[in-house]
């Protein structure tokens, strides 16, 4: 006779008082399969923890974003933000979907070139571009977005030296009514720095000013700030045209669109409240179309959004190491997923669901990672069903930044699997090994021996 499924005994005090008027769910459906592949099978084959990326979700999300903009504005180009997730397979999906590459370092630039991206379709952003990086970008006719005057002077010198006319844009920072205002990158709009840079570029004639760029913030919860940014860049472009009889080819509004994650301290879940692609597209397109650009002279609109395009495609599978009680009787559950691989747990309350069926009994739980560090907390408080040791959980919306900002700290970084359009899993990044780590180290001869 088969035995009854075990669930640990639990007693929960019934709290009286005002109910939550929003009626937040205290239980979720289990997520047993991702794109048709069983979580148990994935962990069985590739181990735990495990990052899983859904190709289907990436493709449907970029299609949704493109549709939102292309149905409202005639010329739109997406550029994939490498720093958000620069796994080669992920970048390749975006390039197949027509995205250019947006890179912010020599390393990312080389990654894009190695993948086969046409140099003319690489946007090179960021404050740190070495002479070597700039030489490569100029030679490949990439779009260089100038961040500061030192870079502007370096490009001027290199243009002379290489006898080339680099295609450049300037990054403009501005007040769009959001706090904090990002003014550390680029040239300020309000105080005249942007005009100073434009004047220098236009008078030198060493470079071709092809665009204006801004990136007003990250995880933006108000689309209206983008309307202000688009209007200010449009004004700048039109004034530039009037002064120098020079038309810029594009306006690049950067990224920063919020994904569906829930920021810590938010009252309502991000899935219900964060703006959609349509919300952002409506505000941006309206601002550009309402500007004084002639109908047939609208510039290309470039978007470098990363987080909102890939967050939902990423899942992190983990397993329960142990259940404990705190000194106050609170349930503590230790997972094999630490903050070193889930960097975003510092600012999001990630949705976490069990990967197997469960009853409706639940406990308020604090989820810890496996690191012997007090900061290793995945969720300070969440209501979860009764998880047993060895059972699996799925952490949602982890596709952005975790696979680039992760750290090899205490534990090794895990495998990453991509589930393709035919629901077939592929290993796209192997887990680290001790050999990998040791191969980068050298022990001086005098330290090789010690008493054993």
């Amino acid at each position, binding site marked *: 006779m*088969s*035995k*009854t*499924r*075990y*669930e*640990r*005994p*639990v*007693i*929960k*005090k*019934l709290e009286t008082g005002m109910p939550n008027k929003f009626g937040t769910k205290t239980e979720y459906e289990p997520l047993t399969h991702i794109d048709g592949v069983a979580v148990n099978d994935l962990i069985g084959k590739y181990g735990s923890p495990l990052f899983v990326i859904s190709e289907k979700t990436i493709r449907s999300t970029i299609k949704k974003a493109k549709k939102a903009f292309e149905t409202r504005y005639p010329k739109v180009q997406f550029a994939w933000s490498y720093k958000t997730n620069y796994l080669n397979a992920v970048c390749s999906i975006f390039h197949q979907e027509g995205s250019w590459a947006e890179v912010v370092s020599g390393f990312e630039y080389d990654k894009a070139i190695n993948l086969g991206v046409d140099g003319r379709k690489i946007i090179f952003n960021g404050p740190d571009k070495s002479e070597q990086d700039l030489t490569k970008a100029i030679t490949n006719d990439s779009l260089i977005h100038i961040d500061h005057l030192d870079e502007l002077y370096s490009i001027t010198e290199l243009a002379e030296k290489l006898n080339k006319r680099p295609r450049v844009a300037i990054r403009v920072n501005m007040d769009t009514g959001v706090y904090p205002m990002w003014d550390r990158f680029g040239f300020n709009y309000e105080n005249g720095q942007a005009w100073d840079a434009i004047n220098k570029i236009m008078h030198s004639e060493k470079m071709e000013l092809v665009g204006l760029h801004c990136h007003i913030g990250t995880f933006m919860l108000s689309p209206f700030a983008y309307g202000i940014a688009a209007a200010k860049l449009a004004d700048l472009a039109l004034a530039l045209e009037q002064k120098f009889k020079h038309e810029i080819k594009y306006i690049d509004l950067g990224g920063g669109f919020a994904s569906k994650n829930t920021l810590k301290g938010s009252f309502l879940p991000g899935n219900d409240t964060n703006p959609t692609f349509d919300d952002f597209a409506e505000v941006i397109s309206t601002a550009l179309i309402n500007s004084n650009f002639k109908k047939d002279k609208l510039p290309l609109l470039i978007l470098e959004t990363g987080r909102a395009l890939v967050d939902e495609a990423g899942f992190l599978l983990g397993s329960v190491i142990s*259940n404990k*009680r705190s000194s106050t*009787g609170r349930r503590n559950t230790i997972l094999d997923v630490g903050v070193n691989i889930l960097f975003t747990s510092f600012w999001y309350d990630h949705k976490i669901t069990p990967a197997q069926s469960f*009853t409706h*009994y639940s406990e308020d739980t604090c989820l810890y990672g496996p690191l012997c560090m007090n900061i290793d907390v995945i969720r300070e408080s969440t209501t979860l069903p*009764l998880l*047993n*040791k060895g059972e699996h959980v799925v952490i949602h919306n982890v596709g952005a930044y975790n696979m680039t900002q992760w750290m090899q700290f205490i534990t090794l970084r895990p495998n990453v699997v991509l589930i393709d359009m035919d629901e077939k899993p592929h290993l796209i990044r192997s887990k680290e090994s001790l050999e990998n780590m040791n191969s980068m180290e050298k022990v001086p001869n005098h330290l090789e021996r010690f008493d054993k």
Partner: protein
Amino acid sequence: MKLRKNVAVSEAGLLFNPVNGESYSLNPIGVEILNLIREDKSPEQIIKVILEKYSTDKATFEKDYFDFIGILEHHNLLESHEETNA
């Protein structure tokens, strides 16, 4: 170890402690264990009964059982040793 005499437990898993007016909810296995405690079963007997019925191992259940007992004590639902011996 005994459950306090005046503590009421329904079949559906609702527990009421008239001493302080607090109510609690239990899952079915929790109710089962409370009933076994009421029947004066020893921890060893309770572990045996549960292992025969549920798909778990001794180490897992033993840990969960004593954790559960600890929470019952925390909520003052068990008679203290002094009360039991009096």
